[in-house]
Each structure stands twice: as structure tokens, then as C-alpha cells.
């Protein structure tokens, strides 16, 4: 294949990748592999396509092949670490990240990914150290800031959450990233109304995103009128508080010898509790079944 054609194909692949359209890039990559099945760059690109399909083992094998053929080991080990992490093979993921960092410890994104792995595996102190190191290396990397932001979300650290949310908004690569981060912020705060609005905007930017649709549908479901009693019970502290409140009320009424009201309260409790159990079934029957 002539160099000009190769450069054009690479440009097309880069273009499709920039739009997250990995499947569109696939035929071009396959074509490049036909003319040179050993080309490390092309093997790596095919690995990215498989990663996007969530076929992690195949993705890893392709990048391992690329590595054997001379692909940059820093990037290859980082990629391999990501695939292991997605498969919850955390020890193997750590090995891969460490090999990448051994070659070049100044990779902000690898430090951040490794830090996040530490959070996943319960090494919180090491996690924050690695994330701090990543921020020190490249404070303007959007992926690094995303990891730090997610760390503080997980730790429910309000002030740092707000600070890193603002930071991610400033350096996000596109509108989608901003909307995701702000929607997640409100979801974690259980402010579903605001989260829904951001998710709605996010969905309109990419209606093929099934994950966003799932969350939106779940919010729609829980916000439905049928779940109003469930929401009220959650507002007062959940079923346990509701139950204990009921017991105390009935005991007080019985002690005060107002049995008739105690019986009404008991009946109301049983009806409400029974309804909250039946609500999901009613929703499936009358709302979902309608569609």
C-alpha cells in the first residue's frame, strides 16, 4: 500500500475515533491489516475497536501482539491494564500499570487510572497519592480530572466534589463530558430532578447512548405518580423509620386507650406498606405494558 493511501486511511480512522464511531473505522483498519497484518500501529487501533465493543480479552490480545511487534510499551501496558481492570482482574491490571509506569512514571493518565484502581481495591490512601501525582504531572488533563472527581464523589467529599466538578467543566473536551459530570453530581446528591434535566440534554446529544437512556428511564420510573408513597417513605428516612414511627404511634394510642384510632392507623400502615410492595408490579402492568 502506498504511503499516501496509508496516511489517508489513518486520517479517516482518527476522524472516526474522534467521533467515537469505532465500528465505522473497523473496515478501514481491517483493510490495513490485510496489507500488513503485523503493523503494530494498526493492531493497536484494532484493539481500540474491540475495547469499544467491550471484548476485552480480544482487545488485549491484539495489543499484546502489537507490543511484540514493537508498539510503544508505555501505551500498550496502559491499554492492557485498562482491559484487565474492566474484567475485574485487578492484580493483573496493577501489574500492567506498574510496567507502564516503570518505563515512564510521568504519565498523568496512567497514574490516575492506577489511583482509581486503588480506590476500587480498597487502598484509599494510595489512591489519593497517585491521583495527586497525576494532577501534579498534568493538571489540565480532562481524563485525570475526571478520575479525581470520581474519587471525591465516591468518598462523598462535598467541597472537593464541587471544586473538581468546576475543574472538569473548565477543561472538558466537549459538551457531553460536561453534561455527564454535572448529571452524576446531582444523581449522587439524589437531586434526581436536576440530574434528569442534564441527562435529558445529554441524551439529545447522543440518543444512541443506551446507558443514559437506562438511567433516564429509571428516573422516570421512580418519579412516576404510582411511586409517590414510596418516595414519601424514603423522604422520612425509609421503611425502617416509617415502621418504627408507626409502632411508637400505635403504642402511644393504645397506652392512651384510643384504640379506635390505633386500629385506623394500623389499617393505614398495612395498606401503605402493602401498596409500596405492589407499586413496581402496578407500574409494569399499567405503564410499561402500555408501551
Amino acid at each position, binding site marked *: 500500500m502506498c504511503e499516501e493511501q496509508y*496516511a*489517508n486511511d489513518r486520517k479517516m480512522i482518527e476522524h472516526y475515533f474522534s*467521533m467515537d464511531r469505532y465500528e465505522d473505522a473497523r473496515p478501514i483498519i481491517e483493510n490495513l491489516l490485510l496489507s500488513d497484518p503485523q503493523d503494530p500501529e494498526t493492531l493497536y487501533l484494532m484493539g481500540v475497536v474491540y475495547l469499544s465493543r467491550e471484548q476485552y480479552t480480544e482487545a488485549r490480545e491484539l495489543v499484546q501482539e502489537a507490543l511484540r511487534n514493537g508498539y510503544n510499551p508505555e501505551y500498550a501496558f496502559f491499554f492492557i491494564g485498562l482491559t484487565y481492570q474492566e474484567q475485574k482482574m485487578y492484580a493483573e491490571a496493577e501489574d500492567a500499570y506498574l510496567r507502564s509506569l516503570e518505563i515512564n512514571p510521568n504519565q498523568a493518565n496512567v497514574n490516575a487510572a492506577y489511583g482509581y484502581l486503588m480506590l476500587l481495591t480498597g487502598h484509599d490512601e494510595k489512591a489519593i497519592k497517585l491521583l495527586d501525582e497525576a494532577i501534579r504531572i498534568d493538571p489540565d488533563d480532562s481524563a485525570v480530572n475526571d478520575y479525581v472527581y470520581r474519587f471525591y464523589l465516591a468518598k462523598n467529599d462535598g467541597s472537593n466534589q464541587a471544586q473538581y466538578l468546576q475543574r472538569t467543566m473548565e477543561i472538558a*473536551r466537549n*459538551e457531553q463530558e460536561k453534561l455527564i459530570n454535572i448529571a452524576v453530581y446531582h444523581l449522587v446528591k439524589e437531586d434526581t430532578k436536576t440530574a434528569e434535566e442534564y441527562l435529558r440534554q445529554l441524551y439529545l446529544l447522543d440518543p444512541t447512548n443506551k446507558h443514559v437512556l437506562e438511567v433516564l428511564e429509571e428516573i422516570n420510573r421512580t418519579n412516576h405518580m404510582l411511586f409517590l408513597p414510596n418516595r414519601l417513605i424514603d423522604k422520612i428516612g425509609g421503611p425502617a423509620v416509617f415502621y418504627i414511627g408507626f409502632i411508637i404511634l400505635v403504642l402511644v394510642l393504645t397506652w392512651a386507650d384510643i384504640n379506635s384510632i390505633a386500629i385506623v392507623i394500623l389499617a393505614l400502615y398495612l395498606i401503605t406498606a402493602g401498596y409500596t410492595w405492589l407499586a413496581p408490579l402496578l407500574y409494569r402492568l399499567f405503564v410499561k405494558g402500555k408501551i
Partner: protein
Amino acid sequence: MDRIELLQSMVEKDKSNIQAWYMLGEELLQQENLREALYAFSMALAENDYTMEQNVIAYLSKVFSSLEGQSRNTDEENAYNLASVRHVEDDDQPNPDEVEKTVELTVIHGKKTDNISSLKQYQPKTVTFQDVGGLDSLKKTINMKIIKPFMDPGLFTKFRKKTGGGILLFGPPGCGKTFIAKATAGEIGANFFPVHISDILDPFFGQSERNLHDVFKTARANRPSVLFFDEVDTLGYSRSKANSDIMRPLIDSMLTEMESIDTGTDNLLIIGATNMPWDVDSAFKRPGRFDKLVFVPPPDMEARQTIFQLKLKEKPLSSDISLEILATKTEYYSGADIENVIELATENVLTEIMETNQERLIGMEDLLYAIEETIPSTLEWLQTIKNYIKYSNQTGLYKEVAKYINKVLL
């Protein structure tokens, strides 16, 4: 270094080296790079050298006469002569009322538009709405929104109705957006120039924008013409979604080019097609750009019958085939899906023949079984757009789709 590169370096060093220009022209023509070849030949003639002129004429005559011969061999009309080129479109659909026109071939300077004016483009066939089975409502919409304003802008001006701007065809994949665009070009008797992002994109800085400019220039030079941008979302991808700013200059160039068109005087119509209208940058949907959105739905009953008829034409069929039943059973199937059904049925019959050694024809049952084994690929798209309309809280740009979905899906 290959021969072309060698010759290119020679002419770069000495632009008056007409021998090198001539040889470069020969090489480029052999690679079917007509546009650059003609440029090289014209440079070879720049010195007014009589011998060179004779050489060029002799060589080009030889090449084009061999092409004419090839064209006759395939029972098609003569597509070329040196001064004029009859430009028509390729398609595998039947063509009962072939419309042909003669336009002047213009050589445009630039590097990468070989796909626009290459030899492959000049295949003698054209299509009109008569070749599109069914879809009457769509044809009527296109007639009102596109063809009439294009053909008779005066009437619209009289009633102060704005004309101009491009048309964005959108709908599920495989439902014939390209074919509709070709037929539209056929209806207005215009040359059809299909353009894909791969024709534009170039790794060298600024070259993509130049390629885009050349595309518009070529279309203008061959007017009346329809410039058709397939998968326009990949060219005008939403800037709020892109992971990098690398495409911004190209998008800006595209917007500028579109704005510079005056449909009335330029006789140039821009049609875009996309499966993902939500990915097209909102700037493209503003007045003067792709301001008319036309929904191309999955083929209706009549269209499906036509597609079955065409695709089954060459197959060995039993006499029990009912196109009407097949069309009824394939609601929401795209043209590509129907083709897939026929392929599957054919494969099944072939497998059976190989296993039993008893030859037989493709029957109705084979096709019905293949239909049962497949699901229409358009459903996912329709579900997506249905959710899109639901969450956008308004039908807005997608009024036609909402109407279609309400009619057929609910």
C-alpha cells in the same frame, strides 16, 4: 520513489519541462486520475510546441477511443468524446426512461478530487422518480420542497417564498436515501456528484478544506448539478460532541461554501444524507444551509413489492411467488433487509441442493422462512428517534418522523 513521484519532482524543479509533463500525464491517466492527467497534459502544451500537441492529441484520442469501444461492448451509450462528456449516474436499478445530458468537462486545479472527475464516474445511467417504487408521499414532499423551487424559482419569488438552502435527507440505514437523491437529480435534469468524507479528508494541513472547495468548484462548473454529501454527519459532526477541534476548520469551510450558493443563479443543489441527524452540527440546520429536513421512511408496501420484484428478477423462482404477500410480511424492512432476506433464502436453497443433490427453484416458503429468520434493521433506529422525540419534549425538526411513528408504531 515511484515513477509518478519522480516525474512530479522533475516538473517541480523545471516547470517548463514539457516532456516530463507529458509523461506524467500518461502515468496519471493510466491510474485513472483524469483530472490531474489533463492538468499535466495542458502544462505539456503550455510551450506551444507543435510536436507535443500532436503527441497529446494522438495519445488522448487513443485512450478515449478505447473507452468508447468498451462502452459499446456493454451495450451502453457512448459516454465520452474529447470535447464533451455525457455525465450520468451509476446504479444497479433498472432504468426505463434514461435521461442523459451533455455537459462540458472542466479541469479544476487541486490535488484530490479524482473521485469526482475520475473515469469511474462516467458510467451511463440515470434514475428518476419513475424508478422509485411507492413512497408517493416522500416523492410529493421532495417535489414541493426541492424540485419545484429549483425548477421555477420565479414563482416562489413572486409569492415572497424563500428558495435555496440545502436539503437533509434522514432516516434509517438502507432505506434508499442515496437513491432518492439520485432520482431527485434525475428529475431536475442535473448532474449528480456524490461526495463522501473520505473524498475530502486529507492528512496534510489545509488540504481537506481545499478538497472541499474543489468539490464545490467542480459542481458549479458542471451545472445544473446536485452535490450529494453522503453520511453528512461525518463531515459536519456536531462540534459540541467532537473530542477534538481538528474538524472545525473543515466544518467552517463547509458552512461558508454552502452560504455562498445562490440556488437561483448557481443552479446547484446541495443534498445531504444521514442516519444520525442528531449528530449533524446545529449550525448546518440553520436557514440557508440544510434548512429542509426530509424524512426517508422505510419502504412502504408498494416500494417493498418493487424491491422484491427487482431483486428476485435474476433468481430461479417457482411460480408460487406472491410479491404482495412478501411485501405484507416485511413491514419496516429496509431495502437492504429485503436483499438480505433474498440472499438468505438463496443460501438455504443452495445448501439443500448441495446436501440432497436435487436441484430445485426458490419457492415462496423459502422466502417466508427467511423473513421469519430476520428482523428489520430499521426498528432500532425508529425506537431511537422515538425516544429522542419523547425526551426533546417537542417534535420540532422531526415532525414528519413523529407523524410516521404515530401512524405505524403506536
